[in-house]
């Protein structure tokens, strides 16, 4: 096993990775920006190194500073977490070229999956259903019009190098196409330095369903699906497993085909294949080549520690898991606690946590990096912790989550705790009658 791992991240995911390392008996190196010097991940790690100032490009995205930190501490591997450099192929390549193990797939696969046009081609080639649309990037207005007429409006123009909803344009009718197509290209160039765009059918009421995989050189296993359809501004807020809305036959087909695709491309480590689900059908959306925020949902349901498995696979090359080892139990829900004010259009709410009390009890897990007196700075993501509850069934999981949310006290900043209570008591959530656009249409405040 590795002797020392450097965690190239911050916040709750850095703490999560440090915990996994400690349980494997691996020494940990935390890196941090100047404003994060007193944060939990720095306190829990065996060693820590300051990379630079508060701005991510000077610290958590600063590749040369990170490589120096590896050099100084003698770490053998880097765990990138999620966000920051986790899906940066260039970084994975540099790390690998320096004889350090990058905990994740090869730089080549990160690059291919990062290019949405390329990823879609791979998915199709290996038997996954893809969204109807252009096969390749679309270069002219005439071509865009031909494709859009064929698949029928509304259509969605997306940037090949994009993500996070940027550079996406919904076109409702043919008259709007030319302007929006040119604008999408312009924005793609500006945001991603790559003006490649492609066109897809736009789904009006989709659910977001994804499959967790763990893959070694020997085999690939899936850890079932997660339903992440409660979203705000294209970002997930609540995730659950199993999905309450898909049939057993659709589910088993999805899991089998996903596992086969991931195995065939020679994937290494933990990954998630994301899908759009509408009217009983699945369509490949993208593959995330890293651990995800919502991974605890799957961990609690299956009893498998995904982060420890990631480290094991990175070290051995193979996975010790077989598909038979994966047995999910009951229903699991995760609520993301963000430092933002849902009553003010999710306005960021940085500040000092004056009072903190976290829930506990039967099948109640909190993954976080916050504590009483800690400062939530405005420089990073608003996610401060996650609450995960398991029940024998969905009803009990909801009841337990509501009980735990009631125990949760965070004072000094505004968080999404109160919104979660409203969502979990809402009849639409209880009957699972919603799609990814639900939150933007519903009035909670």
């Amino acid at each position, binding site marked *: 096993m590795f002797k020392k791992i450097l965690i190239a991240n911050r916040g709750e995911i850095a703490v999560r990775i440090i915990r996994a390392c400690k349980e494997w008996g691996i020494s940990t190196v935390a890196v941090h920006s100047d*404003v994060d010097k007193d944060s939990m991940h720095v306190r829990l790690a065996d060693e820590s190194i300051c990379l630079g100032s*508060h*701005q991510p490009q000077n610290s958590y995205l600063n590749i040369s500073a990170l490589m120096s930190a590896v050099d100084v501490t003698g770490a053998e591997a880097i765990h990138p977490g999620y966000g920051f450099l986790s899906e940066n192929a260039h970084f994975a390549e540099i790390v690998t070229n320096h004889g350090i193990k990058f905990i994740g797939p090869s730089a080549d696969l990160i690059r291919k999956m990062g290019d949405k046009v390329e990823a879609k081609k791979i998915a199709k080639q290996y038997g996954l259903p893809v969204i109807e649309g252009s096969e390749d990037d679309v270069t002219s207005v005439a071509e865009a019009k031909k494709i859009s007429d064929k698949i029928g409006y509304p259509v969605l123009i997306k940037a090949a190098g994009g993500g996070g909803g940027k550079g996406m344009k919904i076109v409702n009718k043919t008259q709007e196409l030319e302007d929006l197509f040119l604008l999408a290209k312009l924005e793609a160039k*500006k945001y991603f330095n790559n003006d490649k765009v492609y066109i897809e059918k736009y789904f009006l009421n989709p659910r977001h369903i994804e499959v967790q995989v763990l893959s070694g050189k020997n085999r690939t296993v899936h850890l079932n699906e997660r339903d992440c359809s409660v979203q705000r501004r294209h970002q997930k807020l609540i995730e659950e497993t199993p999905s309450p809305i898909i049939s057993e036959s659709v589910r088993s087909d999805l899991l089998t085909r996903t596992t086969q695709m991931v195995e065939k491309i020679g994937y290494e480590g933990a990954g998630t294949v994301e899908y759009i689900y509408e009217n009983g059908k699945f369509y490949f959306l993208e593959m995330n080549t890293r651990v995800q925020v919502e991974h605890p949902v799957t961990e609690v349901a299956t009893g498998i520690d995904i982060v420890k498995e990631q480290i094991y696979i990175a070290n051995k090359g193979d996975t010790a898991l077989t598909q038979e080892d994966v047995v999910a139990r009951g229903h699991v829900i995760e609520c993301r606690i963000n*430092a*933002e004010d849902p009553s003010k259009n999710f*306005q*960021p709410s*940085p*500040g*000092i946590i*004056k009072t903190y009390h976290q829930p506990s009890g039967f099948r109640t897990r909190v993954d976080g990096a916050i504590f009483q*007196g800690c400062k939530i*700075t*405005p*420089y*990073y*993501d*608003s996610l401060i912790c996650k609450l995960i509850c398991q029940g024998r069934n969905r009803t009990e999981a909801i009841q337990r989550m509501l009980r735990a949310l009631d125990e949760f006290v965070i004072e000094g900043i505004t968080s999404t705790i109160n919104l979660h209570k409203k969502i979990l008591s809402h009849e639409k959530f209880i009957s699972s009658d919603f799609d990814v656009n639900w939150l933007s249409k519903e009035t909670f405040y």
Partner: protein
Amino acid sequence: MKINKKIIEELVQYLKEYNLSEIEYAEGSTKVKVSRSLSGSNILSNEVISSKSKVAESIDSSEKVTSPIVGTVYLAAEPGGKKFVEVDQKIKKGQTIMIVEAMKTMNHVPSTQDGVVSKILVKDGDPVEFGQPLISFK
């Protein structure tokens, strides 16, 4: 086991002297931990004092636009791009003067009045606090 009061007394002394909340001391198999709670009101009052002194520093007669939010300030829409406002520029109420990024959200800061810019009080990429002056008018 016999408790060595002297050690405890000595540790308590250190706690007070260095304003610590906890101290642990081990000798062989004996481990002594002394802790105390630093009261919440104490911490709070420190903060009030520091924010008061900040306000005092910033008092001067000229009109200013202050930051409505804590975050990182940007003077232009993109790195190396044209600045929203320059010194000596005539600006209107409601016009964007800067962007303050907080938790990956870009917040446009509008001018609160018409006027001519006298000084730009922050640098691109600076961290800014709530209520911190960003520009002043002539």
